[in-house]
């Protein structure tokens, strides 16, 4: 049974709700739908789950209306899509921008609902009866048709007449089968279920996660023996799997750090003052006139038929055409190709194009505009919306707030191997120092050779204290002690460096979530390089997944922000920023654009969007 059906404008005014089923909805599903789905450019998806409800929606882009149906998740209502499209049609006929109340629509809606339910019943019945007669193949066909957005098929009537006369058997099996099929079809077949991330945020430990935790605890004991080497004088080779360990005789003391300072010259470079960090400089970007060149457009469709071109020009002048999916497809395909050449992950480009298509379908073309320019405009708006941060990225404000509460502000840098965590940690420390904030570094990368020395060198150059415990220590414990030390000596910020780890590496991800759970940092910063391609999607989603699965307390900490590194190496292939922001919902807080301390800047949303669509 439908819980609710709403019609509202894009400006937010509710025009009509179904009064027959006046159940109050638990929570605020509509607002959540708008905030986490429609405004996040996921409007191309099929449905949205919130609590016990499933929501489906459709747009009327020309009039600026949104139609949303809410029903219980456990019921697989098959007529909802059908009902939504019919409601859309009949409501748009009676819609008037001046009218605010549409009580006469109640009657129409009741009829439409009865009809839609009846149609769904018929289809179910024909499917059930068709099964014993026509075999499995037909059933698969019929159920596929059911789940598509289709109005009543004419040919079913013919079947129904002949089939009903035979009676029907095995109704329960078929009903179950039908429900199963539709459930399968409803799930996204895309590898990454983006909508699940919304769930990750709002809920704590799931049953699934609990199970996994039980497994992981068992295997943790097994692997910890391998991970933590015995406290002997010699360092054992760290093995992560069952590969044969290297012969022990060759292992000598690999840790060459001298207890009393470094070998060689100690260049105390007095607080490396290299000038202002680029975070504080005004971004001077050339604002060339937004001229829409005709030449690049014509390259897109070299094989356009003469007749097609002429009619499109005619339509662009008169501007009366309603945009159809077929019109939008070539423009969207070209746009998707262009985004992919700019290093946007393929799935993300696909989802974005679907979302833009959903928002443009049925809209009237303004006069003197081409379809391609309308699509471009819509895509530009969508990109700006995605890249605009959802919450404030004012770190200084957060630091001051933590200072008032007399506790240090803890930032943890996580990421895969070799993206530039340590380097960018030093850059962030430099920037904070310039703003008169006292910083402390914590060397929790106890695995990689030279990691602690690297941080020590940075600390010496910047003249900030560093907390280190050497190698082969538990990073979570080191971090905890570092935070205690910072509270004792009054540092404002603690920057925690962790070891790089691949997102698939189970024991390492477990160690990371242990660190985060134990220390409850204020900011979990994912460091990602701008050179990454499709792997960005996988990295971020797996990191988030593991963090949520393995979290112990009630509120799950996910990735709060992204630090994009090696930005100077990509000329205009800036798509990684878009993929990362889309998949995680976290804003880009810093951009690393070089290898010296001053090369840290903020993300300039408009410049990125311009580069992406150039």
């Amino acid at each position: 049974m439908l819980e609710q059906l709403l019609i509202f404008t894009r400006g937010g005014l509710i025009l009509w709700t179904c009064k027959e089923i006046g159940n109050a909805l638990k929570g605020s599903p509509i607002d959540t739908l708008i905030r986490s789905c429609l405004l996040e450019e996921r409007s191309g998806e099929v449905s949205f789950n919130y609590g016990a409800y499933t929501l489906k929606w459709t747009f009327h882009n020309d009039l600026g209306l949104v139609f949303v149906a809410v029903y219980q998740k456990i019921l697989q209502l098959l007529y909802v899509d059908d009902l939504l499209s019919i409601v859309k049609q009949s409501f748009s006929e009676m819609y008037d921008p001046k009218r605010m109340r549409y009580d006469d629509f109640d009657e129409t809606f009741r009829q439409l609902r009865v009809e839609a339910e009846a149609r769904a019943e018929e289809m179910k019945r024909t499917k059930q009866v068709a099964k014993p007669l026509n075999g499995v193949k037909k059933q698969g066909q019929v159920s596929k048709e059911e789940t598509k957005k289709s109005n009543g098929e004419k040919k079913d009537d013919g079947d129904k007449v002949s089939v009903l006369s035979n009676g029907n058997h095995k109704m329960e099996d078929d009903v179950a089968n039908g429900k199963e099929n539709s459930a399968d079809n409803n799930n996204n077949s895309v590898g990454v279920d983006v909508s699940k991330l919304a769930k990750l945020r709002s809920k704590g430990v799931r049953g699934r996660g609990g199970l996994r935790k039980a497994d992981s605890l068992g295997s943790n004991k097994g692997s910890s023996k391998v991970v933590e080497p015995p406290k002997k004088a010699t360092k054992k080779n760290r093995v992560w799997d069952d590969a044969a360990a290297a012969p022990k005789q060759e292992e000598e003391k690999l840790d060459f750090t001298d207890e009393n300072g470094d070998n060689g010259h100690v260049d105390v470079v007095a607080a490396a003052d290299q000038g202002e960090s680029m975070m504080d400089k005004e971004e001077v970007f050339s604002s060339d006139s937004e001229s829409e060149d005709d030449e690049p457009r014509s390259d897109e469709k070299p094989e356009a038929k003469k007749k097609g071109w002429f009619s499109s020009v005619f339509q662009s002048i008169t501007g009366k055409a309603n945009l159809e999916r077929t019109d939008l497809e070539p423009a969207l395909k070209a746009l998707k190709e262009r985004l992919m050449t700019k290093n946007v992950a393929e799935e993300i480009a696909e989802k974005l194009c679907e979302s833009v298509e959903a928002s443009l379908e049925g809209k009237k073309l303004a006069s003197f505009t081409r379809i391609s320019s309308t699509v471009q405009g819509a895509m530009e708006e969508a990109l700006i919306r995605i890249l605009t941060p959802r919450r404030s990225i004012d770190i200084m404000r957060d630091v001051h707030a933590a200072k008032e509460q007399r506790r240090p502000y803890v930032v943890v840098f996580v990421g895969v191997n070799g993206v530039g965590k340590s380097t960018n940690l030093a850059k962030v420390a430099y920037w904070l120092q310039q703003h008169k904030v006292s910083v402390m570094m914590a060397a929790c990368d106890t695995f990689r050779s030279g990691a602690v020395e690297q941080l020590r060198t940075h600390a010496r150059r910047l003249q900030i204290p560093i907390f280190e415990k050497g190698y082969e220590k538990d990073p979570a414990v080191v971090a905890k002690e570092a935070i205690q030390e910072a509270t004792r000596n009054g540092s404002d910020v603690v920057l925690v460096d962790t070891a790089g780890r691949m997102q698939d590496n189970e024991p390492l991800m477990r160690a990371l979530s242990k660190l985060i759970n134990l220390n409850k940092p204020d900011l979990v910063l994912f460091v990602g390089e701008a050179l990454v391609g499709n792997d960005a999607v996988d990295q971020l989603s797996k990191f988030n997944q593991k963090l949520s699965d393995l979290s112990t307390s009630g509120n799950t900490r996910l990735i709060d922000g992204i630090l994009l590194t090696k930005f100077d190496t990509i000329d205009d292939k800036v798509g990684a920023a878009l993929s990362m922001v889309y998949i995680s919902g976290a804003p880009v807080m810093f951009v690393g654009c070089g290898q010296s301390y001053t090369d840290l800047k903020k993300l300039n949303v408009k410049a990125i969007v311009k580069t992406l669509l150039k």
Partner: protein
Amino acid sequence: MENLEGLKLMAEQWSNQGIEYLQKIPPFQLYAAIGLLLLTTVLLLSFRLVRRTKSNTVLLSGLSGSGKTVLFYQLRDGSSHQGSVTSMEPNEGTFVFHSEHAKKGKIKHVHLVDVPGHSRLRPKLEEFLPQAAAIVFVVDALEFLPNCRAASEYLYDILTNANVVKKKIPVLLCCNKTDKLTAHTKEFIKKQMEKEIEKLRASRSAVSTADIANDYTIGIQGEVFSFSHCCNRVTVAEASGLIGETVQVQDFIREYI
């Protein structure tokens, strides 16, 4: 002597010739030329006057969920109809207030724009700021404390915007949802906002004279921030969108339009 007389004769001849020439021009050409001159000067003056006429745009801004859309429809239609959801697009309208329909005489229309408050749609505000004559910043008086920081950051961004500072656009801090019992008073909200903005001021203008995040700084150095320090007028009012208590907002808007 003869030279002088000769010169006088020549001058007289020339002046006679000039007068004859002038008289030869048909009169309406002369009048047409003079008329054109007068017309162009009048047009230039009127253009200057037209540019000076003030715009009648008022922006309704504030965090998502503070009640802007409800307030918009209250001002326009006198009722909030069937409620609202999170806006995805701005609501615009040029109209006379619903309560002023009964008044006689020529009332100037107000171009009211309800800008969505969701943070992803923040750039929309920048589009409308250049043409704004007044800004109403709506704050949820019921759920004030959890959103205090976000609201103060938004207000700070508006108050330090270049357009607002240069044109001294007046701002009304409107505390909405005051019909509820547990809603905070406007004095409390004003004090809290001033405190939060003071903290923001300290953190954002910590280093350089060129404040990169915002166009300008507000307030006086060395003193705790107060709304009276702003160069544009900032006033506080109470309202309730749900029951239609919008008289203070209307008065504010009518002061400037």
